[in-house]
C-alpha cells in the first residue's frame, strides 16, 4: 500500500511539474516585455534593461523555470505584475468562493443525478428512461454561460428573487450553483446508468435474484454497492475539473473566484498570476484524482485481492 501511495505521489508531482513547464513555456511565448508592463509605457530603455536583469528575464527558459519552481516549493509564487501583491495571497483569497461553488454544484448534481441514474437503469428502455436520456443529452449540449444567463434573466432580472451577480449574500451562490449542477448532473446520470446496467449483467446479481432477494435489495444492496466506485470517481473528477473549469460560470455571475482571476490576469498579461493560478488549479485537480485513487484501493476489495495474489506469487 505504502509503495503504491509513494508511486502515485511521484507520478502526480511529475504531472504537475509537466503542466507547470508547459504553461511556463507557453506564457513565455506571449508578446510584450514583463519589465515594460511593470514599469509602464513611460519607462526609459535603461530602466527596462535594468529591471530585466534584476528579474532574471535574460536567463534561458529552463533556468527561469527551475528558479520559479524552486521558489514555488518555498511558497513564493511571485508578485502580480499589476498590483504587486503576492500571488499566493490573492489565490488563497479567491479559493473559498471557487471551492464552495464546486461543492454546491457537484454536490447537488450528485444528490439528484445518482438516484435518477439508478431509476433510469432499473427501468431501462421505459418512457422514464428515454425521457431522462434525452434530457441528459440536452443538458450536455447547453453551454454553461448561456444557461447561466437564462437563469439570471428569469430569476434575478425577471422575478428578482435572487441577486444577478456577486456573492455578497448567500443567495448569490444559488444561480451559479444551479448552473454548474445542471451541467454536472448530465454526466453523473449517464455514468450511474451505464455502470448500473453493467453491474446488472453480472453473475452475482443473477445469483441474488435467484435466491429470492427482493428487487429493492438487489438494486440497492447488491448492485449499487458495486457500482458506487466508478460513480464516486466520476463525481470526484468532476469536482476537480470544477475547481478550474468554473471559469465561464464565475464570469457570468461576476464571482471573485479563481476562474475570474485567471480571465482578468490573462487579459492583463499578468504572467505570475496566470502561472500561479493554473499551477494551483492543476495541483488541486491532481490531488483530488490522487485521493480518488487511494479511496478506490481502500474500498475495492478486488484491488486488495490482486495485491495479495501478487504477494503470494499467483500473478
Amino acid at each position, binding site marked *: 500500500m505504502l509503495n503504491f501511495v509513494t508511486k502515485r505521489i511521484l507520478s502526480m508531482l*511529475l*504531472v504537475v511539474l*509537466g*503542466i507547470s513547464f*508547459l*504553461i511556463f513555456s*507557453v*506564457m513565455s*511565448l*506571449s*508578446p510584450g516585455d514583463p519589465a515594460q508592463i511593470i514599469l509602464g509605457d513611460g519607462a526609459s530603455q535603461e530602466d527596462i534593461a535594468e529591471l530585466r536583469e534584476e528579474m532574471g528575464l535574460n536567463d534561458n527558459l529552463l533556468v527561469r523555470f527551475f528558479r520559479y519552481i524552486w521558489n514555488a516549493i518555498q511558497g513564493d509564487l511571485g508578485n502580480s505584475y499589476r498590483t504587486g501583491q503576492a500571488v499566493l495571497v490573492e489565490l488563497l483569497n479567491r479559493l473559498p468562493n471557487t471551492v464552495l461553488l464546486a461543492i454546491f454544484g457537484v454536490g447537488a448534481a450528485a444528490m439528484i443525478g445518482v438516484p435518477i441514474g439508478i431509476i433510469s437503469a432499473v427501468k431501462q428502455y421505459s418512457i422514464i428512461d428515454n425521457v431522462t436520456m*434525452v434530457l441528459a*443529452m*440536452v443538458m*450536455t*449540449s*447547453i*453551454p*454553461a*454561460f*448561456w444557461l447561466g*444567463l*437564462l437563469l439570471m*434573466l428569469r430569476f434575478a*432580472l425577471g422575478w428578482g428573487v435572487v441577486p444577478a451577480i456577486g456573492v455578497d449574500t448567500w443567495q448569490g451562490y444559488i444561480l451559479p450553483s444551479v448552473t454548474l449542477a445542471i451541467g454536472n448532473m448530465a454526466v453523473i446520470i449517464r455514468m450511474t446508468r451505464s455502470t448500473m446496467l453493467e453491474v446488472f449483467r453480472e453473475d452475482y446479481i443473477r445469483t441474488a435474484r435467484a435466491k429470492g432477494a427482493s428487487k429493492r435489495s438487489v438494486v440497492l444492496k447488491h448492485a449499487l454497492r458495486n457500482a458506487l466506485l466508478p460513480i464516486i470517481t466520476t463525481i470526484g473528477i468532476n469536482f476537480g*475539473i470544477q475547481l*478550474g*473549469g468554473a*471559469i*465561464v460560470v464565475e*464570469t457570468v455571475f461576476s464571482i471573485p473566484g479563481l476562474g475570474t482571476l*485567471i*480571465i482578468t490576469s*490573462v*487579459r492583463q*498579461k499578468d504572467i505570475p498570476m*496566470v502561472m500561479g493560478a*493554473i499551477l494551483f*488549479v*492543476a495541483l488541486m*485537480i*491532481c490531488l483530488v*484524482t490522487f485521493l480518488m485513487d487511494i479511496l478506490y484501493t481502500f474500498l475495492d476489495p478486488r484491488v486488495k485481492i490482486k495485491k495479495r495474489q501478487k504477494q503470494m506469487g499467483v500473478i
Partner: protein
Amino acid sequence: MKISKEQTIDNQSIYKQQGQLASVWLRFRKNKLAVLGLLIFLIIVVLSITADLWLDYDKQAIEHNMGIRLQSPNSDHLFGTDQYGRDVFTRIIYGTRISLLISLLTIVLSLVIGGGIGAMAGYFGGRLDSLLMRIMDILLSIPAILLALTIVAALGNGILNLIIALTVSTIPRFAYIVRSTVLTIKDQEFIEAAKAYGTNNIQIIIKHIIPNIIGPTIVQATTNMANTILLISSLSYVGLGLPSSIPEWGAMISDAKENMRHFAYLVYIPGIAIVISVMAMNLIGDGLRDALDPKLRN
C-alpha cells in the same frame, strides 16, 4: 431455436453482401434520434455552404446600421437586429460556417496528430509509449478550456490561434482512443495469421489496423466536435476567442449581455443555435457508437 439460428445466419449473409458500411447504416437508421441529428447536421452544412448565394455577408452581418438597431424579430428581420443594426438571422447562418469550419479543422488536425501519436505509442510500445502517453496525461490533466485559454492568451486572439489552442487540448483524446484500439488489435489472432502468411507491416497497418481504428475514432470525432463548438463559444463569450465583429454565436451572446433585460431575443437565438448544433453532433455520436459497437454485432 432452429429458426432463430437460420435467421442470424441469414442476417449475417445480408450484412456480408452489403458490406460493412451498409450494415452500420442499417443499424444507425434504427435510432430515430440519431437520424434526426444527422438531418439537422446536413441542414446546417447546406445552410453554411450556400449562405453566400442568398445572404449579403458584408452588408447584413458586418456593417453597422444604427438606423435599424435593436429591432425585435419582424418580417424584414426574421430574428431581429442587434445593437449595431446587424441582421441577427444572417449572423446566425454565418455563425454555422464559423463554428463548423473551426471545429472541423480542429478535429481533423487533432485526429491526424493525436491519432499518429496514439498509433506510434500503441504499435511500438516500450519507452516511446510511456514518454508519449505521459505527455498526453499532462495535457489531459488541465481542463480543456484552461489550456485553450492559456494558449490564446499567449498567441493572441484570432481564428488561427484559436484553432491551435483547441487542437492542442483535443490531441490527447484521440491519442488515447487510437492507442487503446491499436493495443487490443495488435496481438489478436488475425494479425498473427496475417504475419504468418508473410504480410508485411505496411500491409497489416493498411488492411487490418486502420479499418479497425476508424469506428471508435469517428465516434470520438463527433462527440469532440460537439465539445469544440461549445468551447469556441465559451472562449468567445469570455472575450478570448473570436472578436465580436465576427458573427460567432458565443461572441454574439457576449455582445447582447448589456441589453439583455429588454432585448432577450439577442441572447436566446444564438444560444438556441449552439444547443441545436451541439445536440445534433451528440446525437450522431451516440447513434454511431451504438451502430459501430462490435458487441451488438454478435
